[in-house]
């Protein structure tokens, strides 16, 4: 791994991302839109649910609006992170392969993309966290933001995996929207989860650990350590799969 090569690629990748106006507009508008819609359509009515990662005996009772706001925050970060990762890995795939032909290594290019994406996830999470404060104040704000970061990390790894696996953008977007919508946008909602028939299936989905981290931090004093470890491990597995596929697809045969 050559640091100078990674550094150059980081700078160029950041420039590419920064000049993608459509993506930047989405980053600003989507969380605002999600929060506004939830705020307008939910009530302050109390809802009670059990938190899967804490204990079956612990029942949390919070306002439906606050619970939904937090839940939609995780979905927003997840959606944006996976979309950005997909966009960055699929766009310019041919030019990146030309760069590899000219001397870059695929590991250097993907490391640069990952670094820039992680930075973007931090910014998105902080932005969504600050927006959340407009509507309500969670118990442990820093840990809630950490939960958002974990959601971003897991979903960016998922976005990279989708981007390296499917060739066309439309298929990629469909796979991302489907998963985020069903997983982060529906099944991980603790109100739904509490009554779900097959909880094991929901626990294996990407948004489970990050959602738990955010919800536990927002409404209880319990530790989020297990959710943290679960998120990192889940993201790492997706990332390894994405790296292997990227390496395979970008490989070149060096003439003798």
């Amino acid at each position, binding site marked *: 791994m050559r640091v100078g090569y990674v550094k150059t690629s980081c700078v160029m990748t950041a420039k590419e991302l920064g000049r993608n106006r459509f993506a930047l507009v989405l980053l600003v508008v989507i969380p605002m839109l999600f929060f506004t819609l939830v705020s307008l359509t939910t009530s302050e009515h109390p809802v009670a649910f059990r938190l899967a990662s804490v204990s079956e005996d612990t029942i949390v009772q919070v306002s439906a609006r606050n619970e939904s706001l937090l839940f939609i925050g995780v979905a927003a970060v997840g959606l944006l992170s996976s979309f950005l990762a997909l966009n960055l890995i699929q766009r310019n795939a041919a030019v990146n392969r030309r760069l590899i032909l000219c001397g*870059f290594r695929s590991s250097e290019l993907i490391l640069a993309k990952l670094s820039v994406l992680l930075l973007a996830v931090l910014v998105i999470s902080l932005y969504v966290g600050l927006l959340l404060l407009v509507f309500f104040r969670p118990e442990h704000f820093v840990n809630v933001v950490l939960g958002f970061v974990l959601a971003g990390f897991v979903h960016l790894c998922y976005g990279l995996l989708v981007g390296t696996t499917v060739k066309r953008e439309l298929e990629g977007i469909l796979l991302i929207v489907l998963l985020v919508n069903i997983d982060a946008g529906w099944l991980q909602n603790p109100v739904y989860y509490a009554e779900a028939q097959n909880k094991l299936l929901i626990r294996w989905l990407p948004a489970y650990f990050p959602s738990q981290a955010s919800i536990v931090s927002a409404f209880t004093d319990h530790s989020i350590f297990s959710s943290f470890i679960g998120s990192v491990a889940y993201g790492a597995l997706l990332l390894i799969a994405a790296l292997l596929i990227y390496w395979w697809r970008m490989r070149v045969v060096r*003439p003798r």
Partner: protein
Amino acid sequence: MRQGELVGVVGENGTGKSTLLKILVGLLEPTTGQVELRGSFGYCPQEMVIFESLTVRENFRYFAAAYGLDRTEPSTSYEDAKNDLLRRFHFHEYEDRLVSELSGGTKQKLNVSLALLHSPDVLILDEPYSGFDWETYLHFWEYADELRSRGTSILIVTHFVIDRSKFDRLFALADGVFRCA
């Protein structure tokens, strides 16, 4: 190919000219046989394979980094090579413009220049002058002659009949067979 030789490849659409070049540079794996290469090579694909959301300068910088030019001494050598290409192909005024804002011809100038930046020993060019205006086309051949005199071997896929007299050897690809034309 011999040193300083200019070789042309012709053939109808879909006969596999671009595939052949992709095998030569390593983008595709040959089903049989092997490619042997002494020295460095520069490759310009038929399609526009450049970063649209970066400027011309940034594209040069990115590819210079790939070739390792920005880390060689003297550090001015890459800048000199870049400025020389910008001047030769007359697109220096677009250096700080985003590629997405450029015309097709100017993009092609950049596409070709990126293959020339590191002064390779062998140049492999897939229809390099499609989209060039007449003046740039003539400049391209002037530059090709200069490179040959310096010992660079050049392989070009072409459709232009008028180019045929320029090549030392010309091959035609038809039905999967490579013949001396």
